[in-house]
């Protein structure tokens, strides 16, 4: 037998063992319950695989890993979704995560990704159905986390714009910085976004369309509601290819009831975008 033969056989046996343990550790109702669904383990059961002794049975030893699996992920998701947790309360959140991990078990090496589908899951979960705004609140919390860890980029600032000849401004292509994004909600999530997650949230938000800008400045993620006009412009700049400045101006002018006032509005918006570091060059 060659070493390769030996290794691949070991991988096969190791794979069978690891897949079995994965099923037992990740089972929502505990190891004993999961063992009942593993008829192939009879007649010696788990004891043929894991050593037990008079202190702890094999199942009790494996249960340590099962508990660690669930509670480690629960703790991380509590940290990632403090407002969703506050809205649901501990017991409901615990039940939600139990169900969530069955549908969306972690697949990435970094635990940072474990909660990335929670908002999507809330759309179909009874706890989300009873609180139709909750998926949007979770979307906000996830977006905050992603903005925090988004790529750094050299933002356009006023000095950089001043260095460009005014005649060339219309063709300057810009797009939202990687850490900035526009979120569109059906509920006034901004009413909850600044709440203290240490207490139960005071009330559900109002049902009213909301465009919210989320961005990072000096290592902190900030947000503010957007007027329709600014939202339309930033959505255009939020495309992967960005937009030329003249396209952004046209979009704003299209929405402006008084065309004569549009230039001043554009000027104010651009100054704010540059000050907040929202834009990067898209043509370089």
């Amino acid at each position, binding site marked *: 037998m060659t070493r390769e033969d030996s290794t691949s056989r070991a991988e096969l046996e*190791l*794979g069978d063992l690891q*897949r079995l343990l994965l099923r037992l550790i*990740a089972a929502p109702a505990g190891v004993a319950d999961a063992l009942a669904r593993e008829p192939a383990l009879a007649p010696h059961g788990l004891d043929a695989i894991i050593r037990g002794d008079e202190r702890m049975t094999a199942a009790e030893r494996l249960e340590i890993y099962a508990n660690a*699996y669930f509670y480690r992920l629960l703790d991380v998701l509590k940290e990632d979704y403090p407002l969703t947790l506050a809205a649901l309360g501990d017991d409901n959140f615990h039940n939600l995560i139990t169900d969530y991990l069955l549908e969306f078990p972690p697949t990435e*090496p*970094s635990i*940072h990704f474990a909660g990335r589908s929670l908002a999507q899951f809330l759309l179909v979960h009874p706890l989300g159905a009873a609180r139709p705004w909750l998926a949007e609140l979770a979307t906000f919390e996830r977006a905050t986390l992603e903005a*925090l*860890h988004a790529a750094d980029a050299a933002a356009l600032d006023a000095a950089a714009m001043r260095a460009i000849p005014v005649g060339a401004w219309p063709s300057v292509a810009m797009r939202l910085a990687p850490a900035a994004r526009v979120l569109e909600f059906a509920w006034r999530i901004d009413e909850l976004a600044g709440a203290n997650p240490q207490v139960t949230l005071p009330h559900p938000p109002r049902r009213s369309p909301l465009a919210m800008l989320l961005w990072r400045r000096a290592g902190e993620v900030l947000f503010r509601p957007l007027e329709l006009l600014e939202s339309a412009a930033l959505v255009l700049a939020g495309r992967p290819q960005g937009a030329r400045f003249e396209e952004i101006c046209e979009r704003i002018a299209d929405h402006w009831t008084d065309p004569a006032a549009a230039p001043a509005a554009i000027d104010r918006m651009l100054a704010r975008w540059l000050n907040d570091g929202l834009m990067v060059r898209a043509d370089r």
Partner: protein
Amino acid sequence: MKRAEFPFLGYGVGLRRPHYDYIVGARPAMDWFEIVSENFMVAGGPALKTLARVRENYPVVMHGVSLSIGSADPLNRAYLRDLGNLARRVNPAWISDHLCWTGVAGRNLHDLIPLPFTAAVAAHVADRIRTVQDVLGRRMAIENVSSYMSYAASSMAEWEFVATVADAADCAILLDINNIFVNAFNHRFDPHVYIDAIPSERIVQFHLAGHSDFGAYLLDSHDHPIRPEVWRLFAYAVGRFGEVSTLIEWDDRIPPFATLAAAADEARSRAHAALAYRARGSAAESPR
């Protein structure tokens, strides 16, 4: 293996979020820091900025938790690429991960699950460590894990498995003293036998941490001060291996930085005392 690839760094602590601002702002005296690699495998933002600032002033070691070197799944090449990218950014003193598996079938348990101690599994793991070292272009250190279960299929002791893998992979060993103590209780062996059996030339780092006593088993919880029994085992290990880069791990209920720094100082004092004891021609301080 050339020891020069793993210089002696002194006595360090883990770089943890509650201390970021203090470390960057106050630049406290500390020999070195260890990071959890995955916490910094992000595109950008304040964590990477903090790390860059810390790296300007201290040596840094990258310690991973998700390499899953013992998995039956193929090595995760995207993870290795990201790990390599972080290493190029950080220029760490070295890179380490755990002798275990963390996931299979495309799933991740985010826990350090022990392996069966067999020759075939040792060969499987050693092949994969060699591949990782080739990809990273550097030798890595592999850490013994704490465990709460052992396999009926194991045909060798844990210390034999660790030594076999390290020899076959030609990699370094990060020896976690607390994990040895925890496993000695959980699986009923003499921790000194473990330490005596590990090849001295491969030891490049010690980990020290606190554990929790649940009566029937000890849990490697990293949320307590280091227990006196573990300090004694540390002294025994220093007597056997000499002075080795040592790190205090504290990951939950994280205390003020001063508490961690005091633990690092205590490790230094105890190591020097153990070395002085050895130099006087006696066996190292024994916990027995």
